[in-house]
């Protein structure tokens, strides 16, 4: 009898545990939690110059040459910067509202008719969704505004078209994959991360990196303000100065970054992303790691930065 009671209790505990786990899985996530606001001191409107010359490319560190100087943004484009663009472009008609999306014209890609190739002809394409609760901006039908506290966080939920339109609007462009990698890695060695070959939780925002913008029991890992990992201490959280050799921040972690290459393989319709994100393990933060998605894809861990060439 005693044994039976014990078995029943054990079963009840097991069932209860399973139920609790399942209930926890169904918990609603606060997509806009109250978070600390930090000024990192890094200017998101700053640019870094990358000189012409060779650098080590890819995991196998093959020597590649970029025969021109170029400039690239020191940080990813912030929510505040993107909202300014949306308001300006909406006012002058470069951006339009279609249903739940802000759209803009894209002239299309060459089409090769390869199996599974996506045909992207001239037309209006999605830049950002307007009704996604995980976006860090609002739209009241007339004006875009930043949700308070997210001004200096990287712009997310932006498609490749959205990134392309932003850079193009100001006469810039998205960096190519090679430009992005050289800016992240420098030209001296074949380091895996912008700061070297070691990674700790103080270097970058990645999955379970325990920064102040992370609560793995509810909303998970969120973005950190751009330039957050600059050696400062934020409420006791010590960071390492994780700038790249050319002084760029957030080239590893925080948000995946769209790069500009179209058809890096004939018939490949995706666009490439680099840098890993707040939601991936440290292995994805290595400078050569590629991710990709169709150009209309947007996600809460995808952003971008721009480049320009002085000719």
């Amino acid at each position, binding site marked *: 009898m005693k044994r039976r009671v014990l078995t029943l209790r054990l079963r009840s505990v097991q069932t209860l545990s399973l139920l609790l786990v399942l209930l*926890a*899985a169904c*918990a609603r996530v606060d997509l806009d939690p109250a978070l600390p606001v930090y000024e990192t001191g890094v200017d998101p409107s700053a640019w870094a110059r990358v000189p012409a010359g060779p650098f080590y490319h890819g995991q196998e560190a093959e020597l590649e040459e970029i025969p021109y100087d170029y400039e690239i943004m020191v940080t990813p484009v912030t929510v505040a910067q993107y909202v300014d663009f949306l308001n300006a472009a909406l006012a002058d008609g470069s951006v339009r509202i279609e249903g739940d999306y802000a759209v803009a014209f894209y002239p299309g890609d060459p089409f090769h008719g390869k199996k599974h190739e996506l045909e992207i002809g001239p037309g209006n394409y999605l830049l950002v969704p307007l009704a996604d609760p995980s976006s860090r901006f609002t739209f009241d039908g007339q004006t875009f505004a930043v949700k308070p506290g997210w001004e200096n966080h990287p712009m997310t939920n932006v498609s490749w078209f959205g990134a392309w339109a932003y850079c193009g609007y100001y006469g810039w462009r998205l960096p190519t994959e090679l430009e992005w990698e050289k800016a992240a890695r420098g030209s001296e060695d074949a380091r895996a991360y912008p700061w070297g070959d070691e990674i700790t939780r103080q270097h970058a925002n990645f999955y379970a990196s325990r920064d102040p913008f992370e609560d*793995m*029991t509810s909303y*998970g890992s969120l973005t950190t303000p751009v330039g957050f990992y600059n050696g400062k201490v934020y409420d006791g959280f010590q960071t390492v100065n994780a700038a790249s050799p050319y002084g760029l921040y957030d080239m590893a972690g925080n948000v995946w970054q769209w790069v500009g290459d179209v058809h890096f393989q004939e018939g490949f319709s995706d666009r490439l992303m680099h840098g890993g994100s707040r939601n991936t393990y440290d292995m994805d933060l*290595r400078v050569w790691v590629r991710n990709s998605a169709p150009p209309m894809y947007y996600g809460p861990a995808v952003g971008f930065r721009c480049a320009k060439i002085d000719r």
Partner: protein
Amino acid sequence: MPFLKSRFQYLFGTTKGLILVAIAMIALVTALFGMLSGPMAEMGVREIIVRALRMDLQPAEREGRIIILYHSIAMAVVAIEVYMITGLLGMREFYKKAVRVLITVGYLLAMIFGLLFAYWGHEWVFHGLYITGLALIFFAGVLLTIALWPWDKAYFQPDPVYARTKGGVDLERAAFFTTALTTVISSIFGAVPGSYFGNGFEVFLAENIIRLPEKTTMEYSVIGHLHIMLALIAIMITLIVGRWLNFRGRLHKIAMPLMILGCIVLNLGVWGVVTPLEPIAHMIIYVGATPSMLAALLLLIWSWGELIRTGTAHLTKPTFLQKLAALVRDPLKFGPTWQMLFMNFTTSGIGIFMAVRLDEIFRLWPAREERIELTGHWHALSAIIATIILMYYGDIIGLKGKIRQIYGWAIIFLSDLALGAVTVFEMKRLFIGEAEQQPLVNALMYMIDFGLGLLLVLLAIVMVWRLTDLFKPKGRWTEEATHELAEEVSK
């Protein structure tokens, strides 16, 4: 000295001893290297292990390390299957001994020196010994194929309840032979590009990522090699389970030709990826996979029927519940085929799902999500094969009564919980967005960690028990040394 000699003779001279050593090696490697990724990395255990063991982990070499780690484990699994085959099927004593010596030395060399090379700096002598180990395993495979030659009259099948040709050729042996032969050939599809890429330390994901239209012949070869080797290990374990359970009768006669046909066509399809047949290779693979999976289904139907029949033999008119109770009364006999059925949810189901929802997946999902799904499903298949091996092992070491029930059901429950959660994790993007996923991910991770963690604890308990048993003069090991697997096949 006699103490050591008798134990050494048991561990390296008997089928059950050899299987025990290989399982222990896999358990050690899994426990140690499992601490370098996933939740252990998140908790900071990885850093402690790396420092304590003075590992040298260069970020650029991560994929290369994992390739060697997976080969180390896979070689030990292949060795276990070879021990089982040589213990279950008749063959000349010379072949049996030679195959076992070659594969044992081979997998131990590959595992020990491969891991030393990969995780503790690059001592090229170790790399050479790793390659030597792989080469010895290849030669063991060649010898095993010769030993299994089905047209040897000494091994013709005299009993009409088993699948055989009119001339008496044992079709089950022919199926083992076909699988062994195609495994040896398919290994070349990894060896050649492995040498090509390894020479320059190049790596890439061995998955046929559809959104990447251009792949070289060498890349196709590696992709094909990974998939066919795992499929062949799965086919071989299905044949081994069939022999262990003494699969026979009408369904056996249908299943064995299907298994041979499926295996050949499947291989031709995979080998075709490096030929101009590449555009239709997938179609050939589907055509080959169908009879193989049908043969496994026939084994399942037969074995479940046998379990029900023997379990209700004392009843005149058994009810449905009585039949069900008879089916599940022995988890070690029910478990292997149940796991094969469950595999359809974690692996085949995912494959079909990927094919059906192809447009949604690669038109909308980022490549990383596709990668999680692709790599996840064959990790799940590998784990399922491991659980089937553990269930057969539980039977051959003579687990009885409550211990047998606990051991068997724990393997089934824990692995299915973990692998079911892995499968949901792979497919989560279908029903939840990235921003809202964390509670679900947490719950799934708890299930995965709980299932796999306790499974490893169970395995550790068994290993400790077996270790202590070796110190007893009349331990279980003395009894195991006297029985060959073929004598213990179900009646």
